């Protein structure tokens, strides 16, 4: 069944990019429909590949941008894990775009949002199908950047801007760690190909930098997937419009860290540090998310914290050793994406149609919004893990995996139990409390939204029900392949809805019971949790703020110290560094060298004009005279060049000196610079010290250069090859325009850039320099 053409893998990406380009020129609503179509096309493409991927060995791959000189293998590859993610990204993406076109139909920036969502989708697809750490990293960072712009959609609001920056700094900082980690891993494995790295796991583990590499990769994944203590950026990112939150910050982007941990799990899965870090951080994150979710009333923030919990659970499951935990992880991943995206979209509907998304202010909406209520109940039942929903299947297998975890199974299962009960409570909060019970007044008259907004929640929640009824099929076609990729060896765990009366079933029942109790007491529990101010005053979020404020203060301090605005001060620092650096190097090398006898040509001293010019410049009282005296030094130097057989250099030196004197003189006449020296005696003495130090340092350096043995090979080679290869007798010119032409090209480019900079600085963009101006 491996008749799959590798370039099929490029179709969804290309479709997404083309749609993004076209959508940029359409109005927002049409763009959203087009984007939905492109995402749907991608979804169908990936669906068509399911059978091929399940049977193919090895998985189909397309190497499309290999850079052999940099050792970059480049390319895409589709295995079970990638396919599961790709299906979620395109499927949920299509529904979210359809939803967004309606949800934000009055927003003039809808067009921009759609384009960014499409770019994000392509980046996600690239990241999860990349078979190369460089490709993966580029797409990974692109998702962070897309997320930045999407969170800052309402950029007039300072809160949105702050949240966007926070998300970017946290995930971007982690991205830097990830880059370092991936580079180390690639060096250790000798390849950047992910399949190659997994195959070379012995080499990676044996490398001296194995542990730092692993820690850096973990750090990058933890920031992206909002693991403790980096979880705080995720709830704040809820400043984004709801479709963005549903897509990026619950179903896809935040799972990228989980994806990479799963992808690289075959390398480190037997490492105790890997297992420990993932297990305990995941557990801590899950618990943190559960506690914080119970003290929020804003629906989106509640959902965000439950997403943190889910991400923690996924990381925990990857860290657990038993084979079962891989299947548990991918099952829970699928389940969570389905119900969480549905619930986010429902929260958006509630916000849109009732004007409020405060969980404590909504109630009894079932009658007014029957379809929304149906979708919410279906999704919430899956979240709570009730049969016959796929959430139940997932919860059972997650409990099984936790109980099989060995030494720490008790602690893991106990905390997992409490966390799951909290999730049951939140699920009840989002469905029972809001849609049933007494009707509460809302700012707007509630009613069901149009079909395009209902389609997402209904389809996602409905699939949760279907998958729960036939878990074996989903498991066989979608999940076994993914679990195989996580473990690095074939695995087949038949998923079943009904396991019989087992201890796990009892645990499930107890979870639901405790959850319902929490739900009943929520109105009393929530305000108490809110009053515990330690969460606000000592959380990592506050740490981030302190660090950011400190960074800004430090930057301001250094700027004040370094950019003080005194030209003389700048010159003094520059010249002192220039003087001290060579002296320090010379002294570190073992003292000042003296050239051998005869290496110094006494004729060089014949040009007293240089010395006279220098003295005159130093003593001159008027700036004008100093410029003239310096010109004298320059001409003297040119004479030295001429005498020692460098007519080209001499010619250039003469011309430069002429230009310099003319320009300086002209500028001095016109600019309001005081003609005479205003420095005090002390300042003059200090400047003299700097000048003498610099002169001495350069002289010492030149002595050292003359003392070193001269290797004439290069000069001789250029001399011999200049005419046959470059057809020119002027070696200097042949080197400039032929042998080292690329360098010269770079230099004239720098010249031109400097010219543009001077024009911009001195004249401003408003008055370009052109004839007649």
């Amino acid at each position: 069944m491996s008749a799959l053409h590798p370039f099929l893998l490029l179709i969804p990406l290309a479709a997404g990019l083309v749609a993004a380009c076209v959508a940029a020129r359409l109005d927002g609503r049409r763009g959203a429909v087009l984007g939905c179509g492109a995402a749907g096309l991608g979804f169908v493409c990936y669906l068509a590949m399911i059978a091929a991927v399940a049977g193919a060995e090895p998985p189909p791959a397309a190497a499309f941008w290999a850079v052999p000189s940099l050792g970059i293998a480049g390319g895409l590859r589709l295995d079970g894990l990638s396919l599961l993610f790709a299906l979620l990204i395109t499927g949920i993406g299509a529904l979210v775009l359809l939803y967004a076109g309606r949800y934000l139909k009055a927003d003039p920036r809808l067009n921009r949002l759609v384009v960014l969502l499409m770019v994000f989708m392509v980046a996600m697809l690239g990241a999860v199908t990349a078979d190369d750490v460089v490709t993966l990293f580029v797409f990974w960072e692109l998702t962070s950047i897309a997320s930045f712009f999407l969170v800052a959609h309402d950029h007039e609001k300072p809160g949105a801007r702050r949240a966007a920056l926070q998300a970017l700094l946290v995930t971007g900082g982690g991205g830097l760690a990830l880059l370092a980690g991936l580079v180390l891993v690639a060096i250790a494995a000798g390849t950047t190909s992910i399949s190659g790295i997994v195959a070379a796991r012995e080499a990676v583990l044996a490398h001296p930098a194995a542990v730092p590499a692993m820690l850096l990769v973990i750090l990058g994944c933890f920031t992206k997937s909002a693991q403790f203590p980096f979880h705080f950026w995720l709830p704040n990112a809820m400043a984004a419009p709801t479709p963005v939150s549903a897509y990026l910050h619950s179903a896809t982007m935040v799972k990228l860290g989980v994806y990479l941990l799963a992808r690289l799990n075959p390398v480190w899965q037997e490492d105790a540090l890997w297992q420990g870090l993932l297990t305990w951080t995941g557990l801590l994150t899950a618990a943190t998310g559960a506690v914080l979710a119970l003290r929020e009333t804003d629906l989106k923030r509640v959902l965000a914290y439950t997403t943190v919990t889910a991400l923690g659970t996924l990381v925990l499951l990857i860290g657990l050793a038993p084979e079962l935990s891989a299947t548990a992880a991918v099952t829970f991943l699928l389940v969570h994406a389905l119900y969480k995206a549905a619930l986010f979209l429902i929260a958006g509907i509630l916000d849109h149609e009732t004007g409020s998304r405060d969980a404590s202010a909504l109630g009894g909406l079932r009658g007014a919004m029957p379809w929304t209520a149906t979708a919410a109940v279906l999704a919430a039942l899956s979240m709570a893990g009730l049969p016959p929903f796929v959430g139940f299947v997932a919860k059972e297998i997650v409990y099984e995996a936790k109980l099989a975890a060995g030494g720490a199974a008790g602690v893991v299962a106990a905390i997992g139990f409490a966390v799951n009960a909290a999730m049951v409570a939140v699920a009840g909060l989002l469905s029972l409390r809001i849609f049933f019970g007494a009707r509460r007044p809302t700012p707007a008259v509630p009613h069901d939204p149009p079909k395009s907004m209902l389609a997402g929640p209904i389809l996602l929640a409905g699939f949760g029900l279907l998958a729960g009824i036939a878990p074996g099929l989903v498991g066989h076609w979608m999940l076994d392949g993914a679990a195989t990729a996580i473990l690095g060896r074939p695995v087949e765990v038949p998923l079943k809805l009904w396991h019989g009366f087992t201890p796990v079933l009892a645990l499930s029942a107890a979870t639901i019971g405790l959850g319902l109790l929490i739900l009943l007491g929520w109105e009393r529990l929530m305000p108490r949790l809110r009053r515990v101010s330690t969460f606000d005053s000592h959380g990592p979020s506050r740490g981030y703020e302190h660090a950011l404020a400190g960074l800004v203060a430090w930057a301001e301090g250094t700027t004040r110290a370094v950019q003080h605005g005194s030209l003389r001060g700048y010159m003094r620092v520059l010249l002192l560094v220039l003087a001290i650096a060579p002296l320090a190097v010379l002294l570190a090398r073992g003292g000042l060298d003296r050239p051998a006898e005869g290496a110094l040509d006494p004729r060089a001293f014949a040009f007293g004009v240089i010395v006279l010019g220098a003295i005159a410049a130093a003593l001159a009282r008027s700036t004008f005279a100093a410029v003239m005296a310096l010109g004298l030094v320059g001409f003297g130097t040119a004479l030295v060049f001429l005498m020692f057989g460098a007519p080209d250099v001499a010619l250039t030196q003469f011309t430069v000196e002429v230009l310099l004197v003319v320009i300086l003189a002209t500028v001095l006449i016109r600019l309001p610079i005081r003609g005479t020296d205003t420095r005090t005696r002390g300042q003059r003495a200090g400047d003299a010290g700097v000048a003498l130090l610099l002169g001495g340092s350069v002289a010492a350096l030149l002595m050292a250069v003359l003392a070193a043995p001269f290797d004439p090979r290069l000069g001789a080679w250029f001399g011999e090859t200049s005419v046959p290869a470059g057809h020119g007798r002027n070696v200097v010119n042949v080197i400039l325009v032929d042998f080292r032409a690329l360098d010269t090209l770079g230099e004239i480019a720098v010249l031109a850039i400097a010219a543009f900079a001077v024009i911009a600085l001195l004249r401003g963009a408003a008055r370009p320099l052109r004839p007649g101006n």
Partner: protein
Amino acid sequence: MDASLILRVSAPLLLWVPMAVSAYLLVRGHNEPGGGFVGGLVASAGLVFYAISRGQGAALRAMRLPPASWCGIGLLLGLGSGLLAWIDPSAGYLTHRWWFPDIGFKLPIGTALVFDIGVYLTVIGTITAMVFALLGEEAA
């Protein structure tokens, strides 16, 4: 600024003599001291003299195009001169090509000269841009 009468009268001389010298330096640069860089400096000196004596507007008119365009054309010539290298697939970018048409004697023509002209124009553009920007707008 009021330039002296002598300066104003001799301005064309101060422009065209350096220009001619610079062209000579440019062309002979491949075999004798000279080349695009020095040539560009000499030509710039001429233009700067002209700007001082006749005013910046006159100098800009003499240049026909704004200095930034001189830079741009120069860079394009430099970049473009390397493209012909790809006639020979094994040669690297900026490997210059030469022809020796026989017109009584063998006249060497090469893309190296195009490259050097690029350097020449860029240097002129850069220096005149900087000096004119420094001198300010006041027209004499």
